[in-house]
């Protein structure tokens, strides 16, 4: 049966040609060729009446099945090709720069202070604040720093008038807190302080401090060491070691300066720690009973500890910043490093 054979051949030819199509246009050409009015299959179907009755049934059935099959194949293959070509046409250059929304940076001093605050809050401290413009009583006298005493040498101060000055430390807030509240007290006092130091790479007439105070019955020097050890490990790393060196502060006794193992060289000795492996980072001690007397606390009943640190110094150590002036120049190339 020549016609039936021919139908098989047409099917093969069609499949091969359709498979070779790369675009919807080519698919359309194939459709016209095989299913169009001038198509061979159309011709066969049209001339079916010329065949014998037996042949007619067999060829007719097979030709119709083939026609439907071809139409379906063209439809689905065409859709596929159309989608493919659309994708190709709309393809983006993913290496073009993105349009990023702006995200701002918080100043490194704010970030450092926030970090210090968070650690102490997690240790149970509350946060207290007080005025920068202060009287001699809160800045000096209540803290056992009498006038015309060499201990004032360490606290050169800006004066506003005979009554007011700019606080030289945030210790004034300790006095305000103790006047307002009876023990127990567990608070930190972050804030801005002023000392008439000429500005250079390591001095600034304005800087920031965080101080802490704990007062209750039976607060000990061991508690102070415990709190500061936890703080320093949280702030500088768990392998940090602490050293408490006896020192003198009028408002604490016993007093200490607190050193940590140098975070630059790990205690081996380098330029930052001046070769001795230790970095001084804060002052601390047990609250002097004279301070308790100034705020009318029973100095026999209560003990307490206090500590204080400079935020700029800590930020400089943590970030490896060598010039304190960078914090107040506000160069955007500096600020955006702390995003």
């Amino acid at each position: 049966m020549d016609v039936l054979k021919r139908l098989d051949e047409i099917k093969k030819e069609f499949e091969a040609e359709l498979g070779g199509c790369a675009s919807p246009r080519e698919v359309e050409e194939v459709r016209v060729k095989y299913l169009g009015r001038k198509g061979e299959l159309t011709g066969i179907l049209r001339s079916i009446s010329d065949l014998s009755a037996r042949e007619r049934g067999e060829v007719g059935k097979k030709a119709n099945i083939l026609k439907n099959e071809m139409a379906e194949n063209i439809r689905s293959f065409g859709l596929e090709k159309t989608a493919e070509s659309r994708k190709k046409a709309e393809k983006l250059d993913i290496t073009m720069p993105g349009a990023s929304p702006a995200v701002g940076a918080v100043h490194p001093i704010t970030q450092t202070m926030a970090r210090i605050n968070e650690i102490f809050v997690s240790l149970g401290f509350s946060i207290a604040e007080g005025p920068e413009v202060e009287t001699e009583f809160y800045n000096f006298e209540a803290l056992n720093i009498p006038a015309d005493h060499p201990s004032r040498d360490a606290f050169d101060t800006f004066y506003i008038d005979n009554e007011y000055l700019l606080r030289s430390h945030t210790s004034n807030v300790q006095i305000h807190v103790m006047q307002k509240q009876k023990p127990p007290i567990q608070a930190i006092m972050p804030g801005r302080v002023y000392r008439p130091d000429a500005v250079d790479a390591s001095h600034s007439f304005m800087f920031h401090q965080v101080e802490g105070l704990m007062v209750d019955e039976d607060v000990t020097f061991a508690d102070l060491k415990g709190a500061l050890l936890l703080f320093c490990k949280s702030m500088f790393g768990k392998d940090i070691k602490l050293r408490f060196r006896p020192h003198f502060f009028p408002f604490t006794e016993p007093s200490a300066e607190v050193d940590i193992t140098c975070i630059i060289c790990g205690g081996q000795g380098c330029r930052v720690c001046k070769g001795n492996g230790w970095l001084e980072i804060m002052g601390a001690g047990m609250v002097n009973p004279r301070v308790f007397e100034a705020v009318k606390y029973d100095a026999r009943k209560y003990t307490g500890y206090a500590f204080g640190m400079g935020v700029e110094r800590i930020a400089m150590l943590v970030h490896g910043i060598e010039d304190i002036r960078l914090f107040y120049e506000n160069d955007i190339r500096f600020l955006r490093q702390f995003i």
Partner: protein
Amino acid sequence: MKLSYQWLKEYVNIGVKPEELARGLTMSGSEVETIEDTGGDKVMNLEITSNRPDCLSIIGLAREASTVFDKDLTLPMMAVPEERADKNGPRAECVIKNKKLCPYYAARVITGVQVKGSSEKIKKYITSLGLRPVNNIVDATNFCLMETGQPLHAFDLDKIKGGKIIVREAAKGEKIVTIDGVRRELKPDMLVIADESDPIAIAGVMGGRDTEVTESTRNILLESAYFDPVSVRQTARSLGLSSDSSYRFERGVDKGMIVSSQNRAANLIFEEAGGKICGFSEAGVLKPEETRIVLDIERASRVLGESLQKKGVMRILERLGMTISAEKGLAITVHVPSFREDLKKEVDLIEEIARIYGYDRIPAKITKIIPQVTRKEHSRKVIEKIYRILPALGLDEIMTYSLISRQAAGRFSGINDDIVELKNPLSEEHQVLTPQLIDGMLRAVGWNINRGSRDLRFFEMGKIYSRAGWKRSVTETPVLCIALTGALRRDWQEGERPAGFYDLKGIVEALFETLKLPVEFAVSPIAWLDNAAEIRSAKANAGFLGTVDTATLGAYDISQSVHVCQIKLDGVIEKTDLRNHYHAIPKFPSSTRDISILCDRFLAAGRIKEVICSTGEDLIVDARLKDVYEGEQVGSGKKSLTYSVTYGLDTRTLTDQEIEGVHSRVKDALSGKLNVTFR
């Protein structure tokens, strides 16, 4: 204070290397900052705290070392042996006119000395401490000063007119040439040592050149005294003259050693320069304070958090020069020596024990946390929230000095009297407390533009300061300052998008929206701002907003537009409710209609929105300005504004008729009240 290792070993056989000695001194409170090798000796530089004048001497430091390393201390001879003394020799009278400033003065005459260079040992020791050898007399007094901490002065007795010492306050206009060759004018409150006509020394600070010991000196008067620390401090400060002597008198010398140290110096002079140690005379009385402290060792253990042994505690105190007169259980009575006037109370002794015992031996532990419900004030929480919003809006935080120049403050503050000024500023540049954050902001902007960074979005949260109220007391107000300049965005899709007034206004609106506070803007002229607007929230002034005028920008060397605002945070903090209340999400759909309005170009958009909202009342969900057009199509002097108005209700879906109804009422109101037409 400098310390020679070899010199220290004269008094205590320390038995440890210099480095170990340095560590021991540092860890007991006398911090060794540097150790210098001087060939055959090690010289340490120590930081001595102001409460320890006794450590401003080699003997004082030797006592510390003897305690830390538990070794015996040997002191030099502090009396004049009979064979060196000439009891019948001359003496010099001394008179004190002001016993408050000089409670005690002792003068010793030494005759027949031979002034020449000192012995090698004296030279070596004083040189190691940074002193320049002068002659055997001056060197002996300096040696004794360093050894005992008592400043001494030797006068050429033959140059003291009348041969008599008068300790008095300076007369007005009196002058003296000090041994450093400087002619100094004295003030009436300064204490001087004088002969019968002139001052011959500034008491406790420096001697005079006219009576100094020279090669021709034969007879000397050796002074040893106690001068009031505050007076010496004030005199030294007022003259800008600090000496080894004033440094020690300011901190208080050992009242029990005035004469002993003088004897020690007399002996040294005798050994170095020969002669005869003659008459001694004194004026005034000086009784060292008798301090007795009862120390409860139990309490010491409680304060330190470490259980202390009585025997060890007593050993430490005795090594430090104290005597224990009574014991009652764990309570001991301690007598404090005259050189430790800093020890007055029990806690002072607890510190002594702790620093020698070793802070490092006290354990670190946390035994308690105080239960507190509120650990952050509301104000701090609001500030923290603002800190989360502003960087998310693309703003970088800056931090500027609170102290600015008077001139800069004047640029932004209306009334000069309100400015808070320092009495002792470091410089004109930082003379007053800032009344606005604008100066610091514009400085930061100028700094960056000068260095090639032109696109800036800055904020600062800080305080401003002013005098207010009838008492003119200083108030500190927290404020937020924001500035935008240059391009807001610069990218290949949109090109350059300059930051404008409306971008800053949008940031302010976003901030208030996040804090759930209302915000309004009202025209309100400010001299240095173009397009100045007052920011208002809940009927109160909350700050200002605008574009800095070119004249002001010129002062900061800025030539591009800068938009700034300053928001007072005290009111914002007070009104902010940090709680988030849930409101039901709308269940019923809303629908949106556009209105295109043609109106006079000066008609305020805020007015149009007001009319839309007040007319539609609760049926209006939102009225958003979608488009603005000015140009040929609408004719000159006109503008076209398109609003998208959204209608809806919480309780049901509005019908088409209702929407059309309210929409046409809105249009009627607009044309009726504002005389606008529609496109």
